[in-house]
């Protein structure tokens, strides 16, 4: 394992940016581990939540923005609800995800593609179109639907529509995305 120069490698601007975007004070974390203890996804994480908080305190930007955990957090709010210091940990995970996106990292590519597919669908139709999302996901990942086995279960139920539900205000939705992207650029 590498020796970390905790002084030189600590990115203060990064800490400040996370604090500003999340509205949370990172120093309030005293590393009790309650977030890790309650997080249902710990088994799937490469870095447990409490260590995400620790690395954040240490300003380890790259480590954090390239980790898988921030993509596997489902925002189930266990950590936020139980944090003894009232830190909104889930919001910090969200903010790290935003930063990772902006810097072009996505260590769980499939997750990102799925979410993007969802948003594409919303932007296009105003509402999410389940079958369309799946199609985009399959196209982008190049993987055939790994859930193929579920097809026979769900299709006969007649629940998956084959056509999207367009709304009248579809353009308004598209404009939300447009304006958002403009602001991101500026």
């Amino acid at each position, binding site marked *: 394992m590498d020796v970390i120069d905790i002084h030189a490698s600590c990115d203060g601007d990064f800490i400040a940016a996370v604090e500003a975007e999340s509205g949370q004070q990172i120093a309030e974390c005293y590393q009790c581990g309650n977030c890790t203890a309650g997080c249902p996804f710990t088994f799937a994480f490469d870095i447990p939540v409490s260590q995400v908080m620790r690395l954040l305190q240490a300003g380890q930007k790259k480590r954090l923005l390239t980790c898988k955990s921030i993509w596997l957090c*489902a925002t*189930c709010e*266990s950590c*936020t609800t139980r944090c003894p210091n009232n830190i*909104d940990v889930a919001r910090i995970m969200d903010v790290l995800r935003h930063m990772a996106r902006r810097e072009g990292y996505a260590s769980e590519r*499939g997750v990102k593609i799925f979410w993007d597919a969802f948003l594409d669908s919303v932007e296009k139709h105003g509402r999410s179109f389940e079958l369309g999302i799946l199609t985009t996901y399959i196209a982008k990942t190049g993987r055939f639907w790994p859930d193929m086995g579920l097809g026979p*279960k769900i299709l006969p139920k007649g629940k998956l529509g084959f056509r999207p539900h367009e709304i009248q205000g579809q353009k308004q939705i598209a404009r939300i995305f447009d304006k958002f992207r403009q602001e991101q650029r500026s």
Partner: protein
Amino acid sequence: MSTYAYYPGCSGLGTSREYDTSTRAVCRALGLTLADIPDWSCCGSTPAHTVDHTLSSALAARNLAQAEDLDASALITPCPSCLTNLKMAVHRMRDRDFRDRVNKLLDRPVRRDLPVKSVLQVLVEDVGPEELASRLPDKPLAGLKLAPYYGCIMNRPPEVMQFDDPEHPTAMDRLMLALGADVVPFPLKVECCGASFGVPRKDITARLSGKLLETAMDLGAHAMVTACPLCQMNLDLRQDQAASALGRKFQMPVFYYTQLMAVALRLPQNVIGLNKLCVSPHIAFAAMRKARAEAGRRDPSFSEEVA
């Protein structure tokens, strides 16, 4: 009683059609007036807030603005994910700067501070289990043992959701008890089922949902009952995946709580939509009948779908 602005959520048009139809029917039967939000759009769900909080709140807030025309006392939705996004938007928009940023993205800015609630909250607070029980003196679901599962975000974080206990919610329990059903002391009521990772990481979903199914089974539940479309799908549609992840076998029907209410209220089968469930609900009703027989109770009369 006043009108509620109703937000069905996208899945209500697709994978959770039966949740939507049963919710509408139950509300009507209990005297709640729902008015659909005109031309509602997607709340942004999980994907939006993983991109940006302003974007996420703007997608949700468009519906708040759309609802303003309805003169409703509250905006209600059956789906916890939509609920979270809508409530979080309202919560964060109390900050003036954030509100301005959100309104900038919208063609029509949000003006009113409309309360946002879940259908569950309205059924419990505005109708109430007592009223429900009084309409059902024959305890139609007596003998049915249910594991109530709320999902992780129906009541969390408590500062935003402002409903029920964040660790041990009881709203759905109380409704089910009012129908005559039994509820097992299900300890994982708010533990995450794997959420939206079903497609990209079904291994995660399988394991987490598996744990819930296993616990419900070990407690002797005949069925699980839930309030969340995503949870229902993970537990029901993906039950085999969960079983193989844990190396166990499950035959656990997973109902929406509104379906069971509709059954008890003897609403028409087409709105209950029991046929939309993957794991056959008849397993649960059979177990219920057996338990009633053992207790020497008469069977209530139901529509043929249940029978």
